[in-house]
């Protein structure tokens, strides 16, 4: 890198007192798209959390049937224009049942976002534990864990989800189960990333210095490695959330997602796809919600990545007059 780059990066980097987190926010703030996305995500989370409140304002709930609002003779298509939109039902009603769509949409946000976030947490936990253990462990441990990761990666996700969801008793809360199953099956790539990062960090001098200080492996993993792993993991996790939302939708399509009457976007989409012609808004609402969510989360994820970009950090340290010597 030239001095030019050094110079570009230098002023902020040398601002006194700028901690890692503050730098992160500063870099994130410079990206307008990521900021907008962050606001959208925050709104969505807010809507999900405030679902009971919002539906109370509307005066509806997501489970009450309104047989009188649908045309029973025509397959249960909502009566009235635009899917039965009215002052009582802000976004119209669901075909066949007449349940309030607005209520189902905001309650669906709870499940879809909740499941996706929880699944991501599980994926990250398992991935980090396995990845760090493989990266730090002996050759044998590494071999075993890496092989196990390969096995998990090579297992078809949907199939294992189908099988696992069938095994667990139905009394187990379903959204938790769906999140657990997605998390338990799809942690392979995160483990691989963490392992690679661990191996990289393990070779860094500050880890060697910590060893020379006399610390044990566990302490080194906790104090020296985990913070360094956080950046790529957060980046990847931000992109896993939207993926998990669509996985939940797919599981619903296969009939093993969240159970009725609990609404989720995936389930709404599944029920709605055939209504595309007869009651378009029934499909467009959850599809639009899903699109906005995935888009916002993805843009936010990209923003987080840019803000955490280890290369941006590495550019800081390369000045002139430095001799790089290959380490054996």
């Amino acid at each position, binding site marked *: 890198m030239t001095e030019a780059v050094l110079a570009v990066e230098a002023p902020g980097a040398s601002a006194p007192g700028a901690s890692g987190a503050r730098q992160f926010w500063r870099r994130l703030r410079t990206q307008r798209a990521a900021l907008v996305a962050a606001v959208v995500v925050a709104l969505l989370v807010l809507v999900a959390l405030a679902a009971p409140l919002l539906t109370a304002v509307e005066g509806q709930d997501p489970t009450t049937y309104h047989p009188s609002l649908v045309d029973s003779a025509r397959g249960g298509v909502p009566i009235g224009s635009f899917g039965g939109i009215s002052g009582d039902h802000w976004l119209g009603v669901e075909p066949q049942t007449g349940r309030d769509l607005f209520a189902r949409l905001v309650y669906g946000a709870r499940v879809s976002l909740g499941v996706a976030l929880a699944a991501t947490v599980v994926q990250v936990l398992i991935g980090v534990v396995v990845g760090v253990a493989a990266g730090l462990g002996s050759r044998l441990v590494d071999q075993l864990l890496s092989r196990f990761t390969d096995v998990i990666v090579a297992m078809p996700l949907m199939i294992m989800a189908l099988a696992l969801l069938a095994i667990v008793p139905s009394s187990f809360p379903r959204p938790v189960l769906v999140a657990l199953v997605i998390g338990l099956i799809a942690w392979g790539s995160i483990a691989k990333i963490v392992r690679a990062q661990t191996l990289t960090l393990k070779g860094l001098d500050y880890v060697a210095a910590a060893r020379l200080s006399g610390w044990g492996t566990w302490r080194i993993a906790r104090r020296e490695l985990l913070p360094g792993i956080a950046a790529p993991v957060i980046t990847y996790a931000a992109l896993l959330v939207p993926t998990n939302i*669509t996985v939940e939708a797919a599981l619903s399509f296969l009939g093993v997602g969240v159970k009725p009457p609990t609404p989720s976007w995936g389930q709404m989409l599944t029920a709605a796809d055939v209504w595309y012609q007869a009651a378009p808004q029934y499909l467009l609402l959850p599809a639009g919600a899903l699109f906005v969510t995935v888009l916002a989360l993805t843009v936010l994820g990209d923003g987080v990545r840019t803000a955490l970009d280890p290369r941006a950090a590495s550019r800081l340290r390369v000045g002139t007059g430095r001799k790089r010597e290959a380490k054996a």
Partner: protein
Amino acid sequence: MSGFLARRILGAVITLLAISVIVYVVFYVTPGNVAQITCGPRCSPAQVQQVAEQLHLNDPLYARYWDFLQGLVAGQDYSTGTSVQHCSAPCLGLSYQSDQQVTALILAKLPVSLSLVFGAMVLWLILGVGTGVLSAWRRGRLTERLLTGVTLAGVATPVFVIGLVLMIVVCGQLQLLPFPQYVAFTDDPEQWAWNLLLPWLSLALIEAAAFARLTRASMLETLAEDHIRTFRAYGVGERSIIGRHALRGALAPVIALNANNFGGAVGGAVLTETLFGLPGIGQELVHAVNVVDLPVVVGMVLVIGFFVVAANAVADVLYAVADRRVVLA
């Protein structure tokens, strides 16, 4: 190279065996009376018992797994009632439901899945990498925003929505294409392609976004590298820098992701297959899971696992071909 192959093959065998063990265990504890399901709901207890014995369902788990391994290595004989037939190694057993050899079943379904995934792969590479290159080049401009939006729409919309809407519009309303119906490549290559066009597109739209994002990110990373600065400092045009140098450098992660997604899609394109009525591995597998047809499930999962493992090995080789600094190990 031969050492690499030997290690990879050994690794693959271990991985696949581990997968088969997991599947056996998982399905052993799955609820559902397999014999009753296989026999039919009105079968009497005595009949169910007969079926269970015939399928060795009463044997302990390890014995059934051992039988499976024996079949795999040495083949096995089975009775059709009127005669005894041999299922030669590698024999994955017989379907509980249809009494067909699982290997034959796989051979029948595989061309469909491969047709779907190969074609879709070509499309998603064109769409994804193309979009990625364009958006790296035009970064921050309107073109990039639009392209990003379009590819993300693909990833954010489940395939059963995209596919259905595409089909209703393209085949039903505009009548531009026939409703997809699988035609074997060997029967009629042209019809094969026409009929698969929509499934390809649907699947490719789902996958393209990931490639676009990855291509863009690694292009930007490569563009920040020193050798790009060299070519800029020598008056090489931006087009050549993007198309020749940056893209080449960005290909490695794309190859890796492609291997992963290709392998995964062989068995993971369940929804696409179901929607378009393509009798592929994924659809068959979901059905087999529903009816607890263990031999079919194990066989299909192994095939999928094989493709994931093989695709990754191919990616490693490609990787080494693309970048000769890489040593295969």
